[in-house]
């Protein structure tokens, strides 16, 4: 589960980076880019928050 969450989280973040590049290259129209960015962002927060449960507890 930890590996799945890690991979899926990172993929969401990569999508956040790729979406504007696709828009810049005129492959994605602006509304699709903004929607993709929003969905990838939501994905990142959902997945990474769950992934974070496995992280080492930070030092106080």
């Amino acid at each position: 589960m930890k590996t799945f969450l890690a991979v899926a989280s990172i993929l969401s973040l990569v999508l956040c980076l790729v979406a504007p590049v696709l828009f810049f290259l005129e492959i994605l129209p602006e509304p699709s880019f903004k929607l993709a960015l929003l969905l990838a962002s939501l994905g990142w927060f959902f997945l990474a928050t769950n992934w974070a449960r496995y992280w080492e507890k930070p030092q106080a």
Partner: protein
Amino acid sequence: MTDRLAKFTSAMDRLYEFDREPVSPEKLQSGGKFAGLFAGEHVAATEFVIGAFFVLHGVTARSLLFGLLFGNLLAVISWTLVCAPIAVRTRLTLYWYLRKIAGPGVTLLYNIANAFLYCILAGAMISVSATAVGILFGIRVPALDAILPSSAGWVAIVFVLGAAFTTMAILGFEKLSRFAQVASPWIFAIFFAGAVAVLPKLGVEPNLANLWETLSTKVWNGVAVGGQEKFGFWHILFFAWFCNLAMHVGLSDMALFRYARKWTYGLYSAFGMYPGHMFAWICSGIMVAAIGRQMDPGLMAFEAAGAAGIGAVLLAGWTTANPTLYRAGLALQTITPNWPRWRITLLAGSVTTVLACFPLFFLKLLDYVAIYGLVLMPIGAIVFTEHWIFPIIRVEQYMAEKRGWTFNWAVLAVWLGTLAVCFLLPIHLYFKWLPGWFIAAASYTVLMAVQKGTGRIKERSRAGGESGPASAKGESR
């Protein structure tokens, strides 16, 4: 009065008791931890404002790039050569090291000054977040020269956000810190996304052939917006250098580097500086140019990245205001002994929220950052001098601790005197701290060396049979 001061200082000591002892070898951290910590800490809400202000101040593209490159390099060098070596040698926080040098009274004053400065910084972060929420309700950001709140709507948003941030800081600082770790890489991604997405609007072609030309004519074109001072290479270099002055030259990050295995771990600060204080500032500069150079971080991020952009401004403000409120609370707790954590956070949050209503702090953020570093810089110079210079010139170290002084008046005089001299120096605010550092170091050395001479004369006169009640005078300082 003495009793009250003793009560304050003992309350303060109890607060910091957990890190009183030097860090033991088994608690030392790896370099990767430092890299991660710096990378996460330096992508904040203020990055949306700082990079945008450079555009408004009419800096040229070349000055910006070289200024940021060398300014951040100087910041990394300051962490590596000034802060980390002292932290690694002492394994103490600045709080406990300063206490040995300046006495608990001066340390208390330092804490109060720090708390107030933290509140203003957190206030600026709330204001930045308010610009994002303002878009949803059609509330305009105050004008660039605004000092007082521009509308009831602005005040209402700031109060709601301030109350929300404070409540969440009270309810779960730990959980929010974990959430901030999750948010940090995403905020960085939104900076990138926003900047790339507005490039077509600025006229950059997909093959990037005219990228440099566009950036140097439409973004950093060397023309300042009306009412804004023109900035050049040196302004940018010094800003990037002093942006975290309190942390490196001011030695606050001793708290962090006392866990470093080697002083060279200071170099890991580059992981915070170059992505956060170079890349993110460049991105926000590109975004502000795309909205016609208006200082409105919320609108800027919304136009560039849509709803995700608004979320980024809001979360960047929230996740960075949270630890700032916590630090302000911790520092304020020294003057409110026996108050529970929630009450002190509420106080810090209330002060911060009121300050956030005044757009002055967010619209004059660059000047505030300079003042913040300048105010705390003399303490860093004093600690540096005591640590490195005194053993060389054979001036006794840690006199305040050894003789039980509550106030080392030399420290207080040098601190306030340096600030007064810096205020009068006829140079730009951004450049004042550097001569100020040398003034503080030199004057503290002279004052303490003179004190040492006076001490020797007293000791000789005591040894020569002229002892009397006055011989104990030094001990009661």
